[in-house]
């Protein structure tokens, strides 16, 4: 019974995620693709839920939807890109790109399809364990991550900010 529901949901997610991601790619208007992305991210969060990773779901929603996506939309607004009518969405050589991607998929498929796993699946996850692990064993990566974020911050500011003497270099 449980199996069947899982099956159904799995199929749903598969189809919907694919459609959504494709929507991100094909939609004419950038805002539209941003919204497709939003829904896509939410679905991914839901998939996490199915994989007994509630914490990840939360993070996914907070960071991506709350952070990244907002960033995207801001960026789009800042650039206020005027969408001329019937502008080309794809590059000239899109066919070759498509083929390359499909080949890649095919390759992945060839070995992904028969991956076996051990029987004992992850029981309900507890966040405290995650936290403990994060702050004891994975302390070093955590610190490095802080540096990564710092660099991202600084870099983002450096490159994106408008300085008074930008003009004279134009």
């Amino acid at each position: 019974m449980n199996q069947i529901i899982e099956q159904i949901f799995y199929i749903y997610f598969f189809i919907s995620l694919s459609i959504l991601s494709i929507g991100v790619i094909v939609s004419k208007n950038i805002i539209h693709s941003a919204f497709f992305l939003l829904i896509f991210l939410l679905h991914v969060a839901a998939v996490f839920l199915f994989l007994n990773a509630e914490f990840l779901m939360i993070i996914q929603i907070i960071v991506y939807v709350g952070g990244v996506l907002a960033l995207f939309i801001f960026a789009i607004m800042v650039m206020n890109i005027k969408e001329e009518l019937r502008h080309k969405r794809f590059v000239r050589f899109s066919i070759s790109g498509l083929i390359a991607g499909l080949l890649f998929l095919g390759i992945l498929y060839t070995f992904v399809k028969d991956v076996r796993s051990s029987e004992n699946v992850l029981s309900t996850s507890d966040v405290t364990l995650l936290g403990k692990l994060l702050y004891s064993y994975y302390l070093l990566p955590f610190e490095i991550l802080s540096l990564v974020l710092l660099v991202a911050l600084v870099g983002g500011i450096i490159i994106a900010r408008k300085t008074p003497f930008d003009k004279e270099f134009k």
Partner: protein
Amino acid sequence: MSLSGYLLLSATLFSIGLIGFLIRRDLIVMLMCLEIMFNAVNIAFASFSYYNANLIGQIFVLFSIAVAASEAVIGLAIVLAVVRNTGINHSDDIANLRG
């Protein structure tokens, strides 16, 4: 539902993101495709951690989310600079350096 199913899902999404990255002209959409790819990888991590009963995967997902976010920041900043500077926001218009 089996591990291979979820891996298949992630592979599919990854490839779709890749295709999008390869064929779409708008820089911002390309960044979005990058995000899609990262998410695909996250799904793979999560599914591994689920089916192998091992939390490290989830931790990795945390980190990769953060990295993806910071990548997005830098990427957007660069794209912003480009658009500010040259008014170009299409990938195939950026081809002055070649040969």
